[in-house]
Protein backbone atom coordinates (compact mmCIF):
# COMPACT_ATOMS: atom_id res chain seq x y z
CA UNK A 1 0.00 0.00 0.00
CA UNK A 2 1.33 3.43 -0.91
CA UNK A 3 1.41 5.86 1.96
CA UNK A 4 1.16 9.57 1.63
CA UNK A 5 2.17 11.89 4.43
CA UNK A 6 -0.99 13.93 3.97
CA UNK A 7 -3.40 12.25 6.39
CA UNK A 8 -6.36 14.60 5.95
CA UNK A 9 -7.42 17.67 3.99
CA UNK A 10 -6.07 20.21 6.51
CA UNK A 11 -2.51 18.88 6.24
CA UNK A 12 -0.22 20.37 3.60
CA UNK A 13 1.55 18.14 1.14
CA UNK A 14 5.34 18.22 1.46
CA UNK A 15 7.56 18.46 -1.63
CA UNK A 16 9.72 15.48 -2.51
CA UNK A 17 12.74 16.88 -0.70
CA UNK A 18 10.78 18.07 2.35
CA UNK A 19 9.25 14.62 2.61
CA UNK A 20 12.54 12.72 2.52
CA UNK A 21 14.14 15.30 4.84
CA UNK A 22 11.41 14.44 7.37
CA UNK A 23 11.99 10.72 6.73
CA UNK A 24 15.67 11.20 7.51
CA UNK A 25 14.78 12.64 10.93
CA UNK A 26 12.42 9.70 11.64
CA UNK A 27 15.22 7.28 10.81
CA UNK A 28 17.86 9.29 12.66
CA UNK A 29 15.70 9.17 15.79
CA UNK A 30 15.22 5.42 15.37
CA UNK A 31 18.98 4.98 14.95
CA UNK A 32 19.75 7.09 18.02
CA UNK A 33 17.36 5.02 20.15
CA UNK A 34 18.19 1.55 18.84
CA UNK A 35 21.91 1.88 18.15
CA UNK A 36 23.23 4.55 20.50
CA UNK A 37 20.90 5.08 23.48
CA UNK A 38 20.88 1.31 23.96
CA UNK A 39 24.65 1.42 24.60
CA UNK A 40 24.47 3.96 27.43
CA UNK A 41 23.36 1.80 30.38
CA UNK A 42 25.80 -1.05 29.46
CA UNK A 43 28.58 1.57 29.06
CA UNK A 44 27.72 2.99 32.48
CA UNK A 45 27.72 -0.46 34.09
CA UNK A 46 30.90 -1.58 32.37
CA UNK A 47 33.03 1.57 32.58
CA UNK A 48 31.64 4.49 34.57
CA UNK A 49 30.25 2.76 37.66
CA UNK A 50 33.35 0.52 38.18
CA UNK A 51 35.64 3.62 37.88
CA UNK A 52 33.57 5.35 40.54
CA UNK A 53 33.64 2.23 42.73
CA UNK A 54 37.44 2.01 42.54
CA UNK A 55 37.91 5.56 43.87
CA UNK A 56 35.00 5.67 46.35
CA UNK A 57 34.56 2.08 47.49
CA UNK A 58 30.81 2.30 46.81
CA UNK A 59 28.38 2.76 43.93
CA UNK A 60 26.91 6.18 43.07
CA UNK A 61 24.02 6.65 45.50
CA UNK A 62 21.48 8.71 43.54
CA UNK A 63 20.66 10.30 40.22
CA UNK A 64 22.51 13.54 41.01
CA UNK A 65 25.75 11.62 41.59
CA UNK A 66 25.17 9.73 38.35
CA UNK A 67 24.46 13.04 36.63
CA UNK A 68 27.81 14.55 37.54
CA UNK A 69 29.55 11.45 36.17
CA UNK A 70 27.52 11.33 32.96
CA UNK A 71 27.89 15.04 32.13
CA UNK A 72 31.63 14.42 32.02
CA UNK A 73 31.31 11.42 29.72
CA UNK A 74 31.90 12.17 26.04
CA UNK A 75 29.81 9.24 24.80
CA UNK A 76 26.73 10.14 26.85
CA UNK A 77 27.05 13.82 26.03
CA UNK A 78 27.33 13.04 22.32
CA UNK A 79 24.10 11.00 22.37
CA UNK A 80 22.38 13.66 24.43
CA UNK A 81 23.41 16.40 21.99
CA UNK A 82 22.31 14.33 18.97
CA UNK A 83 18.96 13.55 20.58
CA UNK A 84 18.39 17.28 21.21
CA UNK A 85 19.46 18.08 17.64
CA UNK A 86 17.07 15.48 16.21
CA UNK A 87 14.19 17.34 17.87
CA UNK A 88 15.34 20.63 16.32
CA UNK A 89 15.81 19.00 12.91
CA UNK A 90 12.32 17.51 13.15
CA UNK A 91 10.69 20.89 13.74
CA UNK A 92 12.79 22.64 11.08
CA UNK A 93 11.93 20.02 8.46
CA UNK A 94 8.20 20.33 9.24
CA UNK A 95 8.12 24.13 9.56
CA UNK A 96 9.44 24.38 5.97
CA UNK A 97 6.32 22.60 4.69
CA UNK A 98 3.88 24.48 6.93
CA UNK A 99 5.37 27.90 6.20
CA UNK A 100 5.25 27.31 2.42
CA UNK A 101 1.57 26.28 2.56
CA UNK A 102 0.29 28.48 5.39
CA UNK A 103 -1.71 31.02 3.32
CA UNK A 104 -3.48 28.23 1.52
CA UNK A 105 -4.15 26.31 4.73
CA UNK A 106 -5.69 29.39 6.37
CA UNK A 107 -7.89 29.94 3.28
CA UNK A 108 -8.91 26.31 3.61
CA UNK A 109 -10.25 26.86 7.16
CA UNK A 110 -13.59 28.11 5.77
CA UNK A 111 -14.30 24.72 4.24
CA UNK A 112 -13.70 23.00 7.59
CA UNK A 113 -16.24 24.60 9.96
CA UNK A 114 -19.44 22.63 9.51
CA UNK A 115 -19.49 20.21 12.42
CA UNK A 116 -18.69 20.81 16.08
CA UNK A 117 -17.79 24.26 17.38
CA UNK A 118 -14.96 26.59 18.31
CA UNK A 119 -15.21 29.17 21.10
CA UNK A 120 -12.51 31.82 21.34
CA UNK A 121 -11.55 33.98 24.32
CA UNK A 122 -9.03 36.52 23.01
CA UNK A 123 -8.64 38.03 26.51
CA UNK A 124 -7.31 34.80 28.03
CA UNK A 125 -3.86 35.01 29.59
CA UNK A 126 -1.44 32.30 28.50
CA UNK A 127 0.09 30.80 31.68
CA UNK A 128 3.76 31.53 32.26
CA UNK A 129 4.64 27.83 32.14
CA UNK A 130 3.82 27.92 28.43
CA UNK A 131 5.45 31.26 27.61
CA UNK A 132 8.70 31.18 29.63
CA UNK A 133 10.23 28.62 27.25
CA UNK A 134 9.05 26.63 24.24
CA UNK A 135 8.03 23.18 25.50
CA UNK A 136 9.86 20.29 23.81
CA UNK A 137 11.62 22.90 21.66
CA UNK A 138 8.74 23.61 19.28
CA UNK A 139 9.69 27.09 18.02
CA UNK A 140 7.03 29.55 19.19
CA UNK A 141 5.40 26.97 21.47
CA UNK A 142 1.71 26.10 21.15
CA UNK A 143 0.35 29.63 21.45
CA UNK A 144 2.41 32.04 19.29
CA UNK A 145 0.82 33.56 16.22
CA UNK A 146 2.77 34.92 13.24
CA UNK A 147 -0.23 35.85 11.05
CA UNK A 148 -3.98 36.44 11.42
CA UNK A 149 -5.95 33.20 11.94
CA UNK A 150 -2.64 31.39 12.44
CA UNK A 151 -2.81 27.60 12.70
CA UNK A 152 0.87 26.88 12.17
CA UNK A 153 1.57 25.68 15.75
CA UNK A 154 -1.22 23.10 15.40
CA UNK A 155 -0.16 21.96 11.95
CA UNK A 156 3.50 21.67 12.97
CA UNK A 157 2.51 19.57 15.98
CA UNK A 158 0.24 17.29 13.92
CA UNK A 159 2.90 16.59 11.29
CA UNK A 160 5.72 16.21 13.82
CA UNK A 161 4.05 13.53 15.96
CA UNK A 162 4.63 10.65 13.50
CA UNK A 163 8.27 11.70 13.11
CA UNK A 164 8.70 12.00 16.88
CA UNK A 165 7.13 8.60 17.49
CA UNK A 166 8.57 6.83 14.41
CA UNK A 167 5.04 6.42 13.12
CA UNK A 168 3.82 4.69 16.28
CA UNK A 169 0.95 7.13 16.92
CA UNK A 170 -1.30 5.77 14.18
CA UNK A 171 -2.84 7.43 11.12
CA UNK A 172 -4.84 9.87 13.27
CA UNK A 173 -2.22 10.39 16.00
CA UNK A 174 -4.62 8.83 18.46
CA UNK A 175 -2.50 6.22 20.24
CA UNK A 176 -2.71 7.87 23.68
CA UNK A 177 -6.49 8.20 23.69
CA UNK A 178 -6.75 4.63 22.40
CA UNK A 179 -4.79 3.52 25.47
CA UNK A 180 -7.30 5.27 27.76
CA UNK A 181 -10.23 3.78 25.83
CA UNK A 182 -8.72 0.31 26.07
CA UNK A 183 -8.28 0.83 29.80
CA UNK A 184 -11.94 1.87 30.17
CA UNK A 185 -13.08 -1.15 28.16
CA UNK A 186 -11.10 -3.55 30.28
CA UNK A 187 -11.51 -2.01 33.73
CA UNK A 188 -14.58 0.22 33.92
CA UNK A 189 -17.28 -2.08 32.58
CA UNK A 190 -20.61 -0.51 31.64
CA UNK A 191 -19.15 2.99 31.91
CA UNK A 192 -20.91 4.93 29.13
CA UNK A 193 -20.01 8.61 29.55
CA UNK A 194 -22.45 11.11 28.01
CA UNK A 195 -20.45 14.30 28.58
CA UNK A 196 -16.72 14.14 28.10
CA UNK A 197 -14.02 16.78 28.56
CA UNK A 198 -10.46 16.55 27.23
CA UNK A 199 -8.22 19.00 29.10
CA UNK A 200 -5.26 20.54 27.29
CA UNK A 201 -6.63 19.10 24.06
CA UNK A 202 -4.19 20.87 21.70
CA UNK A 203 -5.01 19.73 18.15
CA UNK A 204 -7.71 17.35 19.38
CA UNK A 205 -5.85 14.17 18.43
CA UNK A 206 -6.75 12.71 21.84
CA UNK A 207 -10.23 14.29 21.85
CA UNK A 208 -11.79 12.85 18.69
CA UNK A 209 -11.29 9.17 19.63
CA UNK A 210 -13.83 9.69 22.44
CA UNK A 211 -16.42 11.07 19.99
CA UNK A 212 -15.87 7.98 17.86
CA UNK A 213 -15.92 5.53 20.76
CA UNK A 214 -19.01 7.03 22.44
CA UNK A 215 -21.17 8.25 19.52
CA UNK A 216 -24.05 9.31 21.79
CA UNK A 217 -21.84 11.54 23.92
CA UNK A 218 -21.04 15.23 23.68
CA UNK A 219 -17.28 15.77 23.62
CA UNK A 220 -15.47 18.97 24.59
CA UNK A 221 -11.80 19.94 24.30
CA UNK A 222 -10.26 22.92 26.08
CA UNK A 223 -6.84 24.49 25.69
CA UNK A 224 -5.28 27.94 26.03
CA UNK A 225 -3.49 27.83 22.66
CA UNK A 226 -5.62 29.36 19.91
CA UNK A 227 -3.51 28.29 16.88
CA UNK A 228 -3.88 24.69 18.06
CA UNK A 229 -7.64 25.03 18.70
CA UNK A 230 -8.37 26.58 15.29
CA UNK A 231 -6.45 23.73 13.74
CA UNK A 232 -8.19 21.18 16.02
CA UNK A 233 -11.65 22.29 14.88
CA UNK A 234 -10.68 22.26 11.20
CA UNK A 235 -8.89 18.93 11.60
CA UNK A 236 -12.00 17.42 13.25
CA UNK A 237 -14.00 18.57 10.22
CA UNK A 238 -11.39 17.14 7.85
CA UNK A 239 -11.74 13.80 9.64
CA UNK A 240 -15.53 14.12 9.90
CA UNK A 241 -15.64 13.78 13.68
CA UNK A 242 -17.71 16.05 15.92
CA UNK A 243 -16.18 17.82 18.92
CA UNK A 244 -16.54 21.19 20.62
CA UNK A 245 -13.38 23.17 21.22
CA UNK A 246 -13.05 26.09 23.58
CA UNK A 247 -10.20 28.42 24.50
CA UNK A 248 -9.95 28.22 28.28
CA UNK A 249 -7.46 27.65 31.06
CA UNK A 250 -7.99 24.16 32.54
CA UNK A 251 -7.03 25.42 36.01
CA UNK A 252 -10.48 27.06 36.10
CA UNK A 253 -12.95 26.56 33.27
CA UNK A 254 -16.32 28.24 32.66
CA UNK A 255 -18.33 24.99 32.71
CA UNK A 256 -20.86 24.40 35.47
CA UNK A 257 -20.05 22.04 38.35
CA UNK A 258 -21.19 18.43 37.94
CA UNK A 259 -21.18 18.67 34.13
CA UNK A 260 -19.08 15.73 32.94
CA UNK A 261 -19.03 11.95 33.29
CA UNK A 262 -15.43 11.70 32.14
CA UNK A 263 -12.56 14.19 32.29
CA UNK A 264 -9.31 13.18 30.61
CA UNK A 265 -5.94 14.61 29.72
CA UNK A 266 -2.99 13.26 27.78
CA UNK A 267 0.49 14.65 28.41
CA UNK A 268 -0.95 17.78 30.01
CA UNK A 269 0.18 17.77 33.65
CA UNK A 270 3.95 17.57 33.02
CA UNK A 271 3.71 20.70 30.86
CA UNK A 272 2.15 22.79 33.67
CA UNK A 273 3.54 23.76 37.07
CA UNK A 274 3.71 22.93 40.75
CA UNK A 275 0.89 25.41 41.46
CA UNK A 276 -1.23 24.40 38.50
CA UNK A 277 -1.41 20.63 39.14
CA UNK A 278 -3.55 20.77 42.33
CA UNK A 279 -5.77 23.41 40.71
CA UNK A 280 -6.32 21.17 37.69
CA UNK A 281 -7.14 18.17 39.88
CA UNK A 282 -9.57 20.29 41.95
CA UNK A 283 -11.18 21.53 38.74
CA UNK A 284 -11.61 17.93 37.54
CA UNK A 285 -13.41 17.16 40.79
CA UNK A 286 -15.66 20.22 40.47
CA UNK A 287 -16.55 19.44 36.84
CA UNK A 288 -17.34 15.76 37.35
CA UNK A 289 -20.84 14.52 38.07
CA UNK A 290 -21.09 12.24 41.13
CA UNK A 291 -19.76 8.85 40.04
CA UNK A 292 -17.76 10.38 37.17
CA UNK A 293 -14.18 9.41 36.38
CA UNK A 294 -11.01 11.45 35.92
CA UNK A 295 -8.22 9.83 33.86
CA UNK A 296 -4.85 11.50 33.19
CA UNK A 297 -2.20 9.93 31.01
CA UNK A 298 1.23 11.38 31.68
CA UNK A 299 4.93 10.61 31.98
CA UNK A 300 6.72 8.48 34.57
CA UNK A 301 5.70 10.06 37.89
CA UNK A 302 5.54 6.77 39.68
CA UNK A 303 8.07 4.59 37.94
CA UNK A 304 10.86 5.85 40.15
CA UNK A 305 13.46 3.24 40.96
CA UNK A 306 15.47 4.45 43.95
CA UNK A 307 17.85 1.51 43.73
CA UNK A 308 18.63 2.16 40.07
CA UNK A 309 20.04 5.71 39.84
CA UNK A 310 21.13 5.41 36.18
CA UNK A 311 17.53 4.58 35.19
CA UNK A 312 16.28 7.47 37.30
CA UNK A 313 18.84 9.82 35.77
CA UNK A 314 18.06 8.85 32.17
CA UNK A 315 14.30 9.25 32.72
CA UNK A 316 14.94 12.92 33.53
CA UNK A 317 16.58 13.58 30.16
CA UNK A 318 13.71 15.66 28.73
CA UNK A 319 13.80 18.06 31.69
CA UNK A 320 17.02 19.89 30.87
CA UNK A 321 17.58 18.75 27.30
CA UNK A 322 14.17 19.14 25.70
CA UNK A 323 12.52 22.01 27.61
CA UNK A 324 10.19 19.74 29.60
CA UNK A 325 11.22 21.70 32.66
CA UNK A 326 8.41 20.59 34.98
CA UNK A 327 8.35 16.87 34.16
CA UNK A 328 11.08 16.03 36.70
CA UNK A 329 9.32 17.92 39.50
CA UNK A 330 5.99 16.26 38.68
CA UNK A 331 7.57 12.87 39.31
CA UNK A 332 8.33 13.98 42.87
CA UNK A 333 4.87 15.34 43.66
CA UNK A 334 2.56 13.40 45.95
CA UNK A 335 -0.20 12.91 43.39
CA UNK A 336 -2.18 10.53 45.58
CA UNK A 337 -2.46 13.18 48.29
CA UNK A 338 -3.41 15.88 45.78
CA UNK A 339 -6.12 13.66 44.29
CA UNK A 340 -7.50 12.61 47.69
CA UNK A 341 -7.41 16.19 49.00
CA UNK A 342 -9.53 17.23 46.01
CA UNK A 343 -12.27 14.93 47.33
CA UNK A 344 -11.95 11.81 45.19
CA UNK A 345 -12.79 8.48 46.85
CA UNK A 346 -9.44 7.18 48.07
CA UNK A 347 -10.27 3.55 47.27
CA UNK A 348 -10.77 4.48 43.60
CA UNK A 349 -7.45 6.35 43.21
CA UNK A 350 -5.21 4.30 41.00
CA UNK A 351 -1.75 4.69 39.45
CA UNK A 352 -1.35 2.13 36.75
CA UNK A 353 -0.54 1.78 33.08
CA UNK A 354 -2.72 1.73 30.03
CA UNK A 355 -1.66 -0.20 26.99
CA UNK A 356 -2.02 0.61 23.35
CA UNK A 357 -0.96 -1.24 20.24
CA UNK A 358 1.62 0.91 18.48
CA UNK A 359 1.67 0.05 14.81
CA UNK A 360 4.98 0.87 13.25
CA UNK A 361 4.58 1.38 9.55
CA UNK A 362 6.71 2.24 6.55
CA UNK A 363 9.61 -0.13 6.83
CA UNK A 364 9.17 -1.02 10.50
CA UNK A 365 7.37 -4.26 11.10
CA UNK A 366 5.15 -5.66 13.78
CA UNK A 367 2.95 -4.28 16.53
CA UNK A 368 4.00 -3.87 20.07
CA UNK A 369 2.25 -2.67 23.15
CA UNK A 370 3.31 0.57 24.70
CA UNK A 371 2.68 0.88 28.43
CA UNK A 372 1.62 4.39 29.29
CA UNK A 373 1.24 5.66 32.86
CA UNK A 374 -2.28 6.72 33.88
CA UNK A 375 -3.74 8.10 37.10
CA UNK A 376 -7.43 7.83 37.66
CA UNK A 377 -10.02 8.41 40.36
CA UNK A 378 -13.78 8.48 40.76
CA UNK A 379 -15.89 11.23 42.29
CA UNK A 380 -18.01 9.75 45.11
CA UNK A 381 -21.56 8.88 44.09
CA UNK A 382 -23.86 10.02 46.90
CA UNK A 383 -27.11 9.01 45.25
Amino acid sequence: MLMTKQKHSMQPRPTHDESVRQDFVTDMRAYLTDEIYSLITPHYEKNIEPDFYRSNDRKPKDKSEVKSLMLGDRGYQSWSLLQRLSQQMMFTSVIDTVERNLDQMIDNLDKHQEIGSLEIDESLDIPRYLTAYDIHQQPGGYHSESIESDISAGAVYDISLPIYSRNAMGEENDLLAQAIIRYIDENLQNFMPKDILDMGCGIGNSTLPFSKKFPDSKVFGVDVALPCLRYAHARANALGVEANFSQQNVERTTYDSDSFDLVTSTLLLHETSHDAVPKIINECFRLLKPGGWMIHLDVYPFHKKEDDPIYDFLKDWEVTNNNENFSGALRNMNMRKIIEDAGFSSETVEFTSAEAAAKYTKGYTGDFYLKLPVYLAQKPDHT
Partner: protein
Amino acid sequence: MKEKIKLPRVAKGKKPKYLDDGSIDNLMAMIMTLTQEISVLRDRIDTLEYMLENKDIISNKDFDEFIPSDDLETTRKNRRHELLERVLLPIKKDLE
Protein backbone atom coordinates in the same frame (compact mmCIF):
# COMPACT_ATOMS: atom_id res chain seq x y z
CA MET B 1 2.31 41.51 -3.20
CA LYS B 2 1.53 39.79 0.06
CA GLU B 3 4.40 39.68 2.52
CA LYS B 4 5.97 36.25 2.86
CA ILE B 5 5.24 34.55 6.18
CA LYS B 6 8.29 33.69 8.28
CA LEU B 7 7.67 31.21 11.09
CA PRO B 8 10.10 31.03 14.02
CA ARG B 9 12.72 28.29 13.75
CA VAL B 10 14.48 28.58 17.10
CA ALA B 11 12.83 27.48 20.35
CA LYS B 12 12.83 29.75 23.38
CA GLY B 13 14.62 28.25 26.41
CA LYS B 14 17.98 27.43 27.94
CA LYS B 15 20.60 26.08 25.56
CA PRO B 16 22.64 23.43 27.36
CA LYS B 17 26.30 22.90 26.40
CA TYR B 18 27.35 19.32 25.76
CA LEU B 19 30.87 19.04 24.42
CA ASP B 20 33.74 21.45 24.99
CA ASP B 21 32.73 25.14 24.93
CA GLY B 22 29.72 24.65 22.64
CA SER B 23 31.63 25.00 19.38
CA ILE B 24 31.70 21.21 18.95
CA ASP B 25 27.93 21.23 19.53
CA ASN B 26 27.56 23.60 16.59
CA LEU B 27 29.87 21.44 14.47
CA MET B 28 27.79 18.37 15.27
CA ALA B 29 24.61 20.23 14.28
CA MET B 30 26.24 21.20 11.00
CA ILE B 31 27.44 17.65 10.32
CA MET B 32 24.02 16.13 11.00
CA THR B 33 22.34 18.70 8.74
CA LEU B 34 24.83 17.87 5.99
CA THR B 35 24.15 14.18 6.55
CA GLN B 36 20.44 14.91 6.22
CA GLU B 37 21.04 16.76 2.97
CA ILE B 38 23.16 13.88 1.59
CA SER B 39 20.27 11.58 2.43
CA VAL B 40 17.83 13.94 0.66
CA LEU B 41 20.04 14.01 -2.46
CA ARG B 42 20.43 10.25 -2.50
CA ASP B 43 16.66 9.79 -2.18
CA ARG B 44 16.12 12.28 -4.98
CA ILE B 45 18.51 10.38 -7.23
CA ASP B 46 16.76 7.09 -6.66
CA THR B 47 13.35 8.67 -7.25
CA LEU B 48 14.82 9.83 -10.54
CA GLU B 49 16.07 6.34 -11.33
CA TYR B 50 12.66 4.84 -10.60
CA MET B 51 10.94 7.39 -12.80
CA LEU B 52 13.41 7.03 -15.65
CA GLU B 53 12.53 3.39 -15.99
CA ASN B 54 9.05 4.35 -17.18
CA LYS B 55 9.22 7.84 -18.60
CA ASP B 56 11.00 10.03 -21.14
CA ILE B 57 10.56 13.43 -19.55
CA ILE B 58 10.31 14.13 -15.84
CA SER B 59 9.11 17.40 -14.35
CA ASN B 60 9.53 18.86 -10.86
CA LYS B 61 5.84 18.16 -10.29
CA ASP B 62 6.45 14.47 -10.94
CA PHE B 63 8.96 14.52 -8.11
CA ASP B 64 6.59 16.13 -5.64
CA GLU B 65 3.74 13.78 -6.57
CA PHE B 66 5.89 10.69 -6.36
CA ILE B 67 4.94 8.27 -3.58
CA PRO B 68 7.54 5.58 -2.93
CA SER B 69 6.49 1.94 -2.76
CA ASP B 70 6.95 -0.02 0.47
CA ASP B 71 10.00 -1.74 -1.05
CA LEU B 72 11.59 1.57 -1.89
CA GLU B 73 10.77 2.89 1.61
CA THR B 74 12.55 -0.12 3.09
CA THR B 75 15.54 0.33 0.81
CA ARG B 76 15.79 3.96 1.85
CA LYS B 77 15.38 3.15 5.51
CA ASN B 78 18.22 0.63 5.32
CA ARG B 79 20.42 3.03 3.38
CA ARG B 80 19.83 5.84 5.88
CA HIS B 81 20.67 3.43 8.68
CA GLU B 82 23.99 2.65 6.97
CA LEU B 83 24.70 6.34 6.34
CA LEU B 84 24.07 7.10 10.02
CA GLU B 85 26.21 4.12 10.97
CA ARG B 86 29.15 5.58 9.01
CA VAL B 87 28.71 9.15 10.24
CA LEU B 88 28.09 8.25 13.91
CA LEU B 89 30.63 5.45 14.28
CA PRO B 90 33.05 7.59 16.38
CA ILE B 91 30.30 8.18 18.94
CA LYS B 92 29.36 4.51 19.10
CA LYS B 93 33.02 3.71 19.75
CA ASP B 94 33.07 6.10 22.73
CA LEU B 95 30.25 4.09 24.30
CA GLU B 96 31.83 0.68 23.85
